[in-house]
């Protein structure tokens, strides 16, 4: 099968610190590809480079035949993304968030209308379409972000820890949607998650990254076999070690405090 994403010798340095260290991998068209690693391994940084938000220090990326750095807008049309941190405008309604996305991606008005209806139905938010996003629960926001990421019919959907902080019901729901999109529309999914059983269940192939380097690649079965473990979680721990990694405070948390201080309602 043909590769829809290819990276070669991808490196990202922040000052002296190397967050992503010379990684090369490829993702096949139509597969669900899990990019796993402990906190701080370099997953989000890699996704930011793949999605044109960060310029790589070295290396190159091809996406659906386009050079991501030199043909940014062509590359951007081919993917949708659900970021690790929230990225909705919560002072707008669900419908407006969708509509604005459609406008930014140049979708004609009639088509936008139809697409928003289909997608909001799909994530079961149509009856809440005129509610302000700030009134939504975490799970509803996540579902809206997934619907939005899929609005312009991307070939690839990036999902950076899409199920973080969600209850098992919502998590199952979301993976069921994605599996359906993957099977029915041939969507390529690039995902990260800390829930190993989720990765085991949904992904065709896995790359494990640690300290900025890819340390193993293969199907869930292959990884289990190679480490001689029963579950992906055990295999993951075997490969990345048991040492606990520091979790980073999200910038949003610190800012919510400040926003309150300045009287902004968020």
């Amino acid at each position, binding site marked *: 099968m043909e590769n829809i994403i290819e990276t070669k010798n991808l490196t990202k340095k922040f000052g002296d610190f190397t967050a992503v260290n010379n990684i090369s991998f490829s993702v096949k068209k139509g597969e669900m590809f899990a990019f796993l690693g402990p906190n701080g391994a370099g997953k989000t940084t890699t996704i*930011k480079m793949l*999605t*044109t*938000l*960060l*310029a790589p220090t070295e290396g190159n990326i091809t996406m659906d035949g386009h050079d991501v750095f030199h043909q*940014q*807008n*062509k590359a*951007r*049309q081919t*993917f949708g*993304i659900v*970021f690790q*941190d*929230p*990225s*909705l*405008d*919560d*002072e*707008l309604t669900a419908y*407006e968030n969708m509509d*604005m*996305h459609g*406008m*930014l*991606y*140049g979708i004609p008005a009639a088509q936008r209308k139809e697409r928003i209806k289909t997608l909001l139905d799909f994530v079961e938010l149509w009856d809440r379409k005129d509610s302000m996003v700030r009134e939504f629960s975490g799970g509803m926001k996540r579902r809206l972000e997934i619907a*939005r990421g899929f609005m312009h019919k991307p070939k690839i959907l990036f999902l950076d820890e899409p199920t973080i902080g969600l209850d098992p019901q919502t998590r199952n729901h979301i993976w069921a949607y994605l599996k359906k999109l993957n099977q029915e529309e041939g969507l390529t999914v690039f995902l990260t998650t800390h829930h190993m059983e989720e990765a085991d269940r949904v992904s065709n192939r896995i790359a494990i990254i640690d300290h900025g380097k890819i340390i193993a690649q293969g199907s869930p079965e292959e990884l289990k076999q190679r480490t001689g473990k029963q579950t992906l979680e055990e295999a993951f721990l075997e490969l990345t070690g048991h040492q606990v990694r520091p979790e980073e405070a999200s*910038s*949003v948390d*610190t*800012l919510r405090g*400040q*926003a309150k201080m*300045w009287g*902004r309602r*968020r």
Partner: protein
Amino acid sequence: MTAIYTLWLRQIKKYLRSKSRIIGSLGQPILFLVALGFGFGHIFEQAGQGNYIQFLAPGVIAMSILFTAIFGGIEIIWDRQFGFLKETLVAPVSRFEIMLGRTLGGATVAIFQGIIVLFISMLIGFRVTNFALLPLALVFMFLIALMFTALGTAIASVVQDMTGFPLIMNFIVMPLFFLSGSLFPPGNLPSVLNVVVKINPLSYGIDGLRGTLGQMAHFGLPADFVVMVVIAAALIGVGSYLFSKIQV
């Protein structure tokens, strides 16, 4: 084009929706008009300078535009921290379009505020002497709005979070306002202040507003216009350059 319109529309929608913010932000200009306008009115007149409200109103209109515009630009900090900025940065549009849409949106909102303050001024005694010049007054309002939204954008592109906000207020926004011809006539000033007022672009914006709303322009309308256009263009240039360098 659609991207510019989209981001412009977003600012307008959010503005029209936040009634409390609109009303809240009118408190300060009203206070200035009433306290200073009536408080200093007779002294100003005794000094042979004419009606103070007539002089002060354009300055206060410019003030509300200045504040709204700077905040409109600075909103990028919130959007960055709350994540929405990323959503626009991965869209298949250039950063310049994003910057321009946001800046035009912020500027439009600032003009709305300016117009409301103009009406309030008229309620408390300000007279527009020549309505034929009103469109020109709107042009000056637009230039002030554009210039300072772009400045806000430029600042927000290099500042990471809101901790620097008091610094921005006290060392940029307040001096811009107080050290312009907003509260006192730009002529006959001590030499240092005179120089400061002359290099403050807001002085020319206010002078242009005065000239078009019913007073004599100190620097002359053509000079006001040229200075405003040049500096607004320069700040849009700087703002979009810095915006293009944002890494999230």
